[in-house]
């Protein structure tokens, strides 16, 4: 499923992201680049997309728009075709053509160019189009889904504005938004999208009595009237974000927006210029809609992030084109400090700074700082959020207190693990799910497919940074920067607080086997928090830590790694996760029946830990032998700096789980290996 990578757009804007005029042209350009790359990958698999534009009559403006759209298609690699009809075409003839296009499996998108001549009913014509091919998002089904907050294909202009808001970090939550104009193309869907984005929305139109106070009240203003300079600059609130959709050509040939740009540029927060603001986004979003429509209808499962490799820091390399990579907000900080960067789960991530062992011991003895902003944050909000999430996970969220976190598996209906995750009960109506980076897209789809439709699910992974401060000195260090009483935060509890003045969720969690905290904050706060931790951290021996030591640390603590030690063919019982499977809990959950079946019929294999007794290093994929007989394979393996021995995890078949010693075959040699059920490392408490 194609999804625009917002952080990549932000990256491409560079310092331009701070400028007041919103550069819709540049944002659209990066969107088209991303679409082009994705379409290229589809075409390598023999998949070609096609958009058909239907035009009736000879309206010169329409002809220009249509030419523009067709050219945009060609540039990103979407095939396009123009189907023209005479002004006086009968409804029957037009419908017959639309029916043919709707039925044609080669056609992915159908766009009927408005306006239509008077004898044709625009709404009826659009409703004739297969809703799965309605790339304008005007079909009754698509508009209905929009109101239900289940929109798949949404009208281009308002959706483009939402994209701009995401790119420029304009917060809709709690903001007063005023939409001027109530057309089906812009105003009405725009209002719906703003409501969904948690804004308080006022919609104005020709019958609105007093426009000025409604404009003055707006933190976000969307104007789509087509009346040049309808809104004087002085009406606009200090710091407001203005989206000017209108475009009027004056007699002297100049283009004018609905808002007086030059009179408000001094005091607005952000504003889209005319031209070069909203316009280019409409066309880019049309292309995005075409790709989304095609991937949905044809069930194309190729992700934009190719080669997601959960093996990560091991010898396997991700052969990814650098331009396909996503970027965590603090990437430049890591590069500046000399980190080795590697592609991991689609992100360019620091794998090590001073060296894996050095960083490993920094965490065991003092304190280390990991940037794990690649992790995904999914929020479920609304009445019933608690129960809705509880029905997706194996652990019992209803037993957690407000502010408590639980570790859990999320399973498919066969009992296979879709992901392992941490779930925070922030309140009964707001639940945070922290998911694995490589599973973000998959998890979001799984959640949306299975969750109650009464709650709002939003993937906010791109909006958050996550830092893990781990080690025995983590608490003392963090206490220097926050007034939150950290000693009050118990293991697997979290609290909203401030880190050096920046709002953050502070939770006593981690993936290292040490005491420590994970800090979640908005991406805009990331750099300030990172710098503050380092400023104070010097006195505590704080070191930057990469994914390399994260792997050795988690393995010593016997924490499983998704993609290695479990995947969708693993059930939580064999993975040793029965402690987070609550079959007796009140809510039914996805996979429960299958897991009960598995329990009844007995496990086939179980996870065990391995400690190599000879020199060498265990790696995933190595065979586990009992005498001559292969009884399983390693799923993780590395060198334990703490034990100064190699350790690993793997599954052994059920008849062999009691063995204390096995052989592991490394390059044809069989090496003595001890089997353990315990963690390799346990910190002293």
């Amino acid at each position, binding site marked *: 499923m194609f999804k625009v990578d917002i952080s990549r757009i932000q990256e491409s804007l560079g310092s331009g992201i701070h400028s007041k005029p919103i550069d819709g042209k540049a944002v659209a350009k990066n969107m088209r680049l991303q679409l082009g790359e994705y379409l290229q990958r589809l075409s390598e698999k023999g998949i070609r997309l096609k958009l058909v534009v239907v035009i009736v009559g000879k309206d010169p403006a329409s002809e220009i728009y249509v030419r523009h759209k067709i050219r945009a298609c060609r540039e990103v690699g979407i095939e396009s075709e123009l189907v023209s009809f005479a002004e006086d075409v009968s409804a029957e003839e037009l419908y017959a053509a639309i029916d043919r296009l709707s039925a044609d499996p080669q056609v992915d998108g159908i766009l009927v160019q408005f306006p239509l001549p008077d004898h044709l009913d625009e709404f009826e014509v659009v409703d004739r189009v297969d809703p799965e091919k309605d790339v304008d998002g005007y079909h009754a089904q698509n508009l209905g889904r929009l109101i239900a907050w289940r929109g798949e294909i949404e009208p281009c202009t308002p959706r483009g504005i939402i994209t701009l808001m995401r790119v420029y970090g304009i917060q809709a939550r709690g903001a007063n938004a005023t939409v001027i104009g109530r057309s089906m193309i812009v105003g009405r869907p725009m209002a719906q999208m703003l409501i969904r984005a948690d804004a308080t929305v006022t919609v104005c139109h020709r019958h609105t009595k007093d426009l000025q106070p409604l404009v003055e009240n707006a933190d976000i203003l969307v104007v789509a009237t087509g009346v040049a300079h309808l809104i004087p600059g002085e009406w606009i609130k200090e710091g407001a974000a203005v989206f000017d959709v209108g475009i009027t050509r004056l007699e002297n040939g100049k283009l004018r927006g609905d808002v007086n740009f030059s009179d408000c540029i001094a005091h607005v927060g952000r504003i889209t210029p005319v031209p070069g603001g909203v316009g280019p986004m409409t066309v880019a979003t049309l292309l995005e809609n075409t790709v989304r429509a095609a991937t949905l209808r044809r069930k194309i499962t190729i992700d934009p992030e190719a080669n997601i490799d959960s093996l990560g*820091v*091991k*010898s396997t390399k991700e052969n990814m084109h650098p331009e396909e990579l996503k970027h965590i907000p603090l990437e430049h900080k890591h590069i500046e400090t000399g980190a*080795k960067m590697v592609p991991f789960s689609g992100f360019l991530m620091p*794998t*090590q700074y001073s*060296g*894996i*062992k050095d960083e490993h011991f920094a965490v065991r003895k003092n304190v280390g700082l990991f940037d794990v902003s690649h992790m995904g944050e999914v929020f479920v909000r609304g009445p019933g959020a608690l129960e809705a999430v509880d029905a997706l996970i194996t652990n019992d969220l209803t037993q957690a207190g407000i502010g408590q976190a639980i570790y859990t598996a999320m399973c498919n209906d066969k009992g296979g693990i879709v992901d392992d995750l941490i779930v925070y009960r922030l309140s009964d109506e707001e639940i945070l799910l922290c998911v694995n980076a490589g599973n973000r897209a998959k998890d979001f789809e799984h959640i949306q497919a299975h969750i109650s439709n009464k709650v709002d699910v939003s993937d906010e992974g791109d909006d958050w940074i996550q830092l893990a401060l781990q080690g025995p000195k983590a608490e003392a260090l963090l206490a220097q920067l926050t007034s939150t009483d950290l000693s009050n935060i118990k293991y697997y509890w979290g609290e909203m607080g401030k880190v050096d003045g920046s709002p953050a969720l502070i939770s006593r969690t981690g993936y290292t086997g040490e005491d420590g905290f994970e800090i979640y904050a908005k991406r805009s706060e990331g750099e300030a928090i990172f710098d503050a931790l380092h400023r104070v951290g010097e006195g505590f021996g704080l070191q930057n830590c990469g994914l*390399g030591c994260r*792997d*050795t640390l988690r393995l010593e603590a016997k924490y499983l790694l998704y993609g290695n030690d479990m995947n969708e063919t693993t059930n939580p019982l064999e993975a040793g996760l029965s402690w987070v499977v609550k079959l007796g809990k009140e809510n039914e959950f996805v996979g429960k029946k299958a897991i009960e079946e598995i329990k009844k019929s007995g496990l086939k294999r179980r996870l065990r830990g391995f400690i190599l007794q000879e*020199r*060498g*290093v265990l*790696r995933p994929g190595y065979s586990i032998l009992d005498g001559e007989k292969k009884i399983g394979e390693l799923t993780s393996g*590395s*060198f334990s*700096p703490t034990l100064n021995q*190699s350790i690993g995890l793997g599954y052994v078949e059920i008849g062999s789980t009691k063995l204390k010693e096995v052989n592991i075959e490394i*390059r044809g040699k069989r090496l003595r290996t001890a089997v353990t059920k315990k963690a390799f490392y346990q910190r002293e408490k």
Partner: protein
Amino acid sequence: MNFPSDLLYTKDHEWVSLEGDILTLGITDHAQDALGDIVFFESPEVGQVIENEEAFCVIESVKTVSDVYSPISGEVFEVNEEVEENAEIINTDPYGKGWLVKIKFDTSDPLGLMDADEYAGFLKEG
């Protein structure tokens, strides 16, 4: 990064020094840096006959496994037991105490090796 001028280099990021019919082989500073913390050297047997370009021993760092290739056909004459015991030496002194093996070879065989400048250029090309 350091590439001593009195050594020769292979495309597999090994260094070689020659003394009569004995070739000493180790891995370069670039290789040890790329591997990270080295924790294991799986040595060949003394007397083992090896072919040109054969992967005849293995170095493992915390994060990865790497084969070491022979630049010449010959016979393993000596292995560095100190490195077998303590593979970290490869990180700390790749051109000195971190040597890996000595190979006895036929001096009439041609050696296709790079000098230090050529190796530095080879690295730049990526």
